[in-house]
C-alpha cells in the first residue's frame, strides 16, 4: 500500500529536500517521492520503532557512562532520522565506514549489544567483526574512514559487484583534507560510494559556519558528486535520498553525497559541556523539529493506532535496554595477553619477547605476593 499526501505547499522548508514537515504533514517532493512510493503505514511504524530504539540506546549509553560502566559515550540524540533513514536504505552487501557516533546505523546492522559497548567501556579497541556485519569498526580520526570507503568502492567496481560503500562523517569532518581527497578518488574512478554527512551543526564547540560559509552539499558538487541536501530530521526524506544515492552509485557513473541537515541535541560526548558554547534557544528551535514526533503525528493523521505503536515501542526499547544492561554486567575484562595478541597477524620475535618478559614479571609479582602472605 502506498500513502497519499497533502499536496499543499510546504511551509518553512529550508533549502533542503523535505517530505515530512515537523508537524507531521507530508508534502510532495518530486525529487524524492519516487524513492519512497512503496512505504506503507507498517513501514512507517517500523521506522518509528527503530528511531525509538536508538534513542533509548542513546539514553542507556549516557546513563551507563554516568554510572561508570562506560568510559565514554557519544550521544546521537536528535540524529535518529539521519541514521535510521540511511541505515534502512542499505542492502546487506553494502559496506559501511562509520565515524564514532553511528550507533543507530550499527543497530540497523543488528550488531550485538556486547559488541556495541565493548569499545566505549574501554574493554577492547573495538567491538564487532566488520566482515560479519559489513560495517567497519568505529573511526575516531576525523575523516580518515572516507578514504577507506572510496578505496573499498574502487574494489567493488573492479569486482563488478553491485554493492555500494557508504561512509558517515560530520560537518566538522568536511574540513579535513582526507574527506576532500576521498571525493577526488571516488570521482576519479567513478567508485560506487555514498558520502553521508550528518551536518549536526556542531563540531564539539565549533558551529558549522567555522568550516564553511556556504552549503556543505555545494562543496561536494564542486568535486563532481551527485548531491542531495535533505532534512536530516525527516526519516522519509533521508531514506529516499539514500536510496536515490545508492541507486545512482550502483549505475557506476560516479559517487554521491548526501548532506543530512540535523542537530546534535546532546553533548558532543559525555566528557563535553555544551552549555559553555551554545544557546539554549537553538536547542528549543531544534526540539520542535524532532524526528520521532513528526512521524507519530503523521501516522496519527493517517489513522494509525498510535497507542498500540507506543506500546510496541515501549516493549522494544525496554528489551533493548535490558540487553545493554545484561551485556555490561556479563562483559569480561580484557586479558593481559590482549595487549600483544593482534599487533601483527603473525609472530614478531622481539614483541613476543616483550610479552613473555611481562608475563614473567607478573608471575614473579604474584609469587612475591604469595611469599609475603
Amino acid at each position: 500500500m502506498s500513502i497519499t499526501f497533502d499536496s499543499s505547499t510546504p511551509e518553512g522548508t529550508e533549502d533542503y529536500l523535505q517530505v515530512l514537515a515537523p508537524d507531521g504533514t507530508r508534502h510532495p517532493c518530486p525529487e524524492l517521492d519516487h524513492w519512497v512510493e512503496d512505504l506503507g503505514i507498517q513501514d512507517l511504524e517500523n521506522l518509528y520503532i527503530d528511531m525509538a530504539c536508538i534513542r533509548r540506546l542513546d539514553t542507556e549509553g549516557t546513563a551507563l557512562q554516568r554510572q561508570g560502566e562506560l568510559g565514554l559515550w557519544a550521544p546521537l540524540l536528535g540524529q535518529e532520522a539521519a541514521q535510521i533513514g540511511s541505515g534502512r536504505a542499505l542492502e546487506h552487501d553494502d559496506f559501511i565506514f562509520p565515524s564514532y557516533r553511528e550507533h543507530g546505523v550499527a543497530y540497523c546492522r543488528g550488531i550485538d549489544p556486547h559488541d556495541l559497548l565493548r569499545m566505549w567501556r574501554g574493554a577492547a579497541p573495538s567491538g564487532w567483526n566488520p566482515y560479519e556485519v559489513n560495517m567497519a569498526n568505529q573511526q575516531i580520526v576525523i575523516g580518515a574512514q572516507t578514504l577507506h570507503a572510496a578505496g573499498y568502492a574502487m574494489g567493488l567496481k573492479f569486482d563488478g559487484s553491485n554493492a555500494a560503500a557508504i561512509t558517515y562523517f560530520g560537518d566538522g569532518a568536511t574540513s579535513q583534507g582526507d574527506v576532500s581527497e576521498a571525493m577526488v578518488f571516488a570521482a576519479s574512478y567513478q567508485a560506487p560510494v555514498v558520502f553521508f554527512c550528518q551536518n549536526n551543526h556542531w563540531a564539539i564547540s565549533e558551529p558549522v559556519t567555522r568550516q564553511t560559509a556556504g552549503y556543505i552539499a555545494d562543496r561536494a558538487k564542486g568535486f563532481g558528486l551527485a548531491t542531495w541536501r535533505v532534512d536530516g530530521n525527516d526519516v522519509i526524506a533521508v531514506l529516499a535520498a539514500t536510496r536515490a544515492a545508492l541507486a545512482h552509485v550502483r549505475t557506476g557513473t560516479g559517487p554521491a553525497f548526501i548532506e543530512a541537515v540535523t542537530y546534535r541535541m546532546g553533548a558532543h560526548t559525555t566528557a563535553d559541556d555544551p552549555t559553555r558554547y551554545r544557546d539554549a534557544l537553538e536547542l528549543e528551535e531544534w526540539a520542535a523539529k524532532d524526528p520521532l514526533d513528526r512521524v507519530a503525528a503523521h501516522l496519527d493523521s493517517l489513522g494509525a493506532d498510535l497507542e498500540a505503536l507506543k506500546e510496541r515501542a515501549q516493549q522494544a526499547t525496554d528489551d533493548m535496554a535490558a540487553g545493554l544492561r545484561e551485556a555490561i554486567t556479563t562483559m569480561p575484562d580484557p586479558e593481559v595477553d590482549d595487549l600483544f595478541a593482534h599487533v601483527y597477524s603473525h609472530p614478531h620475535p622481539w614483541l613476543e619477547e616483550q610479552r613473555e618478559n611481562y608475563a614473567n614479571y607478573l608471575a614473579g609479582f604474584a609469587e612475591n605476593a604469595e611469599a609475603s602472605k
Partner: protein
Amino acid sequence: MKTLTFSQALNTSLRDSMEHDAKVVLMGEDIGKLGGVFRITDGLQKDFGEHRVIDTPLAESGIVGAAIGLAFRGYRPVVEIQFDGFVYPAFDQIVSQLAKMHFRSRGNVKLPVTIRIPFGGGIGSPEHHSESPEAYFAHTAGLRVVSPSNPQDAYTMLAQAIADDDPVIFLEPKRRYHVRGEVDTDLVPEPGSLYRAKVAREGADLTLIAYGPLVKTALDAADAAAEEGIDIEVIDLRSIEPVDFATLSASVRKTGRVVITHEAGKFAGVGAELAASLTERCFDHLDHAPVRVTGFDIPYPPAKLENHHLPDLDRILDGVDRAMRRNAPLLGEDG
C-alpha cells in the same frame, strides 16, 4: 608565588605571553569559547578577542600550515593540537615545512611556532587520545622538543618556547594537568635554560631519567628505592631535543648505572637514543647496560589495559633492580 594547577600554570603563561607580545596568537580546535577540551585556553578568547585566540576549522594540516603562514607574516602562533593522536595529519607540514624552512631559506625565514600537544596516557581514553609521539619529532632535524613535568616548568617553559625563534614541539603530560604546585610567575629564567635538564633528586647509585608524565613516577620510585637502600638520582630531562648531554653524562659518570623511562614504545624511542648516547659518552664508567622501562611496542591499548602498558613504580623498580644486577625476582623488561 602562587599555587596553581599544571593547567592553570599553562593558562597563565599563555596569558602573560599574549600580554607581553601582541604578535602571539593562539590557534586550534575548540580553544575559543570552550577554552579547549582541557580548558588550557579558558577565558583567553573573551579577553583577547577572536583574532588572538583563533578557533580553527577541523584540519590539523591546515592549522599548522596556516600557522606557518602567520609566522611568515611576523606572528608568533601557538598551536594547540587537541590530542596527541591528531597531530599526524599535520605531520607533513611539521616535518617538511616547519622544521625545514629556516634551513631552506638559509636563515632568512624564522618560524617561531609553538605546537602544544597534550600527550601520553593514563586518563582512560579511547584510541588516539594517549599517544606519545615524541620520538618522531626528536628524530626530525630543525625542531626543538620539550616537555615540562610540573606547574613551575609548565609556566616557565611555555613562555620560553613561545619566545624561542625556532619551532618548538611542546608536550604537555595531560594526566598531570591537575597536579598543583607553587609557581613563581616573576621568575626570570636564565637564557638557554629551556634546554637544560634538571637533577630533580640527587643520588649516588643510579641515574633514573624521565620526562613529562613519568617524572613524578620516577621520583616516587626513587623514594621507594631509598627505603631499600638504593640512592637514586632522578633527572628530569625537560628538553628532549636538544638533550642536555652534559648534565646526563655527569650523572652517569658518577653513578655508573642508568634507567630510562618513557610511556612511548621502546623500539627506536627516545630511550634508545639516551641509552646509545650515554653508552658512547660514558662507556668506561658504566657498570651495566642502560636499562629502558617503557611502554610496549603496541598500539595504545584500551583503557582497561593501560595500567599494564604504562611504566609504573613497580616496573621502574624492576628496571632499577636489573640495572643494579640484583638477583631480581621480578623480570619485566626484555634485556
